[in-house]
């Protein structure tokens, strides 16, 4: 009962004309920014934060939240259309989403992402509202050993993203982990693997690798195919068919559940959610071979997981005052600026803020759906532009985006280097997606490993001491075993010569 009256209070706060206006503005800005490669919600929020000083704190947060979600939507759009993951969370969407676009089903893919995200956002908001306390409890109980094991499982899950050899993908994950360790080591102050280059002290930025491996690689590969000058693949209906809707529903449900759970954990949540959801779909599917070739489930599940995780990512921020990511840290900063102390008491001391935020999250999701579905047609028109005109534009946006991340030309050069690496990877059929996850999780993995060992004073047994951690590692061992088994058993079949 109290829950309902709180929600009512929330909606009353969120639906004031001014709040709706700012929510809409935030969503619009967020989507536009999200579509532009390189610029992300972090930069946008940072830039727009000063404009919110004059606003009412609730309104300010509502707008910032709108930007945050909007950029997630925008990021999925570029992932699908251009094979460019704007953020970690869109990496998985690229795999099947871009394939769908190549098959002329870009509209369906974008619509699926929008619908999945909306549903997950709605559910996520409800879950957030209802389960703030238990979710917080769960987040508190996750110690470094559990985090480590969860991330290990996540990385193994990333391996199953690859449609090719799993050991190759595992290798890519490790390369990603190693690349993630480049830079200054937080604990010792030592610069690692920087080869004397001081621009590497801050590490290798995610967008640099994503741009190089995905965007540049895609452009290089596509020019050869499309410069024949033929018309692009006929674009089928923009809307999902009944069959599509039937197929996307279970993945959306599963993705939401996974995303909501994993998202509540500070830090790892957002990146892992979509990877877990995708690999779960692949495992429960009766036709796993369609993944990687334009399976709608491969878009619906990760997108739902993303959005659900984005909602529950507010849990540690609001309830514990622990920001889960840099973007959350900015939101935290915004709250502090407006004199709100996040923490377990925020629900009580500022109920209108908390519930207003939750209600506006939902409204934001509605607005985004309203904004994006009609835009699908517009985005798809973009694909009709002859590729020889399109790809220089994409390059332009990419390069400017790259440069503007840290105002560094070295990032541009580094991305070109990764573009070359991406070309080589394609030749030996090593898939880039697992590398990106490794890159993001590398530092966190090491940090939790270090912490767990510190607390246990060097006892490796700490990783199997708790049921959660032990269970997760057991899952990892089982998965690795199945990889090895399928790899060896393939070898027993007689050699088949290529035609």
């Amino acid at each position, binding site marked *: 009962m109290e829950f309902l009256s709180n929600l009512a209070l929330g909606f009353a706060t969120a639906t004031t004309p001014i709040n709706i206006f700012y929510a809409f503005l935030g969503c619009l800005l967020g989507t536009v920014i999200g579509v532009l490669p390189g610029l992300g919600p972090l930069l946008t929020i940072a830039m727009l934060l000063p404009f919110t000083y004059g606003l009412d704190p609730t309104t300010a947060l509502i707008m910032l939240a709108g930007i945050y979600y909007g950029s997630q939507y925008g990021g999925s759009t570029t992932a699908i259309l251009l094979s460019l993951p704007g953020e970690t969370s869109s990496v998985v969407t690229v795999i099947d989403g871009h394939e769908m676009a190549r098959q002329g089903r870009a509209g369906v893919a974008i619509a699926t992402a929008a619908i999945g995200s909306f549903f997950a956002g709605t559910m996520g908001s409800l879950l957030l509202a209802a389960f703030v306390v238990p979710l917080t409890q769960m987040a508190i109980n996750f110690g470094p050993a559990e985090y480590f094991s969860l991330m290990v499982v996540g990385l193994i899950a990333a391996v199953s993203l690859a449609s090719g050899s799993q050991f190759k993908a595992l290798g890519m994950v490790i390369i990603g982990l190693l690349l993630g360790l480049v830079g200054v080591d937080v604990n010792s102050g030592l610069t690692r693997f920087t080869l004397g280059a001081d621009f590497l002290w801050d590490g290798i930025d995610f967008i640099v690798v994503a741009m190089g491996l995905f965007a540049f690689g895609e452009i290089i590969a596509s020019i050869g195919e499309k410069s024949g000058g033929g018309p692009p693949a006929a674009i089928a209906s923009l809307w999902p068919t009944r069959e599509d809707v039937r197929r996307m529903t279970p993945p959306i449900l599963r993705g939401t559940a996974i995303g909501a759970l994993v998202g509540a954990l500070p830090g790892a949540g957002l990146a892992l959610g979509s990877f877990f959801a995708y690999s779960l779909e692949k495992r429960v599917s009766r036709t796993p071979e369609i993944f990687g070739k334009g399976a709608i489930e491969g878009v619906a599940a990760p997108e739902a997981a993303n959005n659900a995780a984005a909602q529950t990512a507010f849990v540690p921020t609001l309830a514990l005052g622990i920001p889960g990511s840099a973007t959350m840290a900015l939101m935290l900063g915004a709250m502090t600026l407006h004199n709100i102390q996040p923490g377990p008491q925020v629900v009580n001391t500022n109920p209108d803020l908390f519930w207003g935020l939750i209600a506006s999250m939902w409204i934001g999701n509605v607005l985004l759906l309203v904004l994006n579905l009609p835009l699908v047609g517009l985005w798809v028109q973009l694909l009709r532009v002859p590729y020889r005109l399109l790809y220089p534009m994409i390059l332009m946006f990419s390069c400017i985006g790259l440069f503007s991340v840290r105002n560094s030309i070295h990032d541009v050069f580094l991305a070109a280097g990764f573009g070359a690496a991406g070309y080589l990877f394609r030749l030996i059929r090593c898939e880039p997606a697992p590398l990106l996850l490794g890159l993001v999780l590398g530092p966190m993995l090491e940090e939790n490993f270090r912490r767990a060992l510190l607390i246990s004073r060097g006892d490796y047994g700490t990783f199997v001491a708790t049921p959660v951690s032990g269970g997760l590692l057991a899952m990892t061992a089982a998965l690795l075993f199945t990889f090895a088994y399928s790899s060896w058993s393939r*070898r027993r079949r007689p050699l088949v010569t290529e035609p």
Partner: protein
Amino acid sequence: MVDEERRDFWAGLLYIAVGLAFAAVATTYPMGTASRIGPGYFPFGLGLALAGIGGFLIVGSRRGRAADRNRVADAKVCAGEADVAGGLRVALLILAAVVAFGVLIRPAGLLVAVIVLVVVSSLAGEGLHAPLKTLLLALAAAAIAWAIFISGLGLPMQVWPAGLS
């Protein structure tokens, strides 16, 4: 050797090289003890693991494997890589364009950098067939870039060549 195996072989070789390289560098960092791991501990382990996987891949590729699992995807990739020489030219041009952008953006400003980027990358597509169209595209791109990033978003970067304006 079948294509698939050849790819696995090279991938394995790459992994061994990268893994050993990282591990070697990691040994120059303090390792610490199990209870207080140093900066070299984790990357050393990872590097060795990577090299191990590489070895596994190489062994696997020489023993002969059925490639039927990746047939469909392979065919697509084979068709795409059929013209490796042509692909290489495209790759080099695109990457050269990006590098040119990076080199020019500070001294020559955004507009010049964008124009050069578009012109060089267009070479990868249809070569010098339509120089006027390419130039128009470059100018249009520069205008759009200015409109969105400088005028619209107000990003701090050099617009005109240093020394002008």
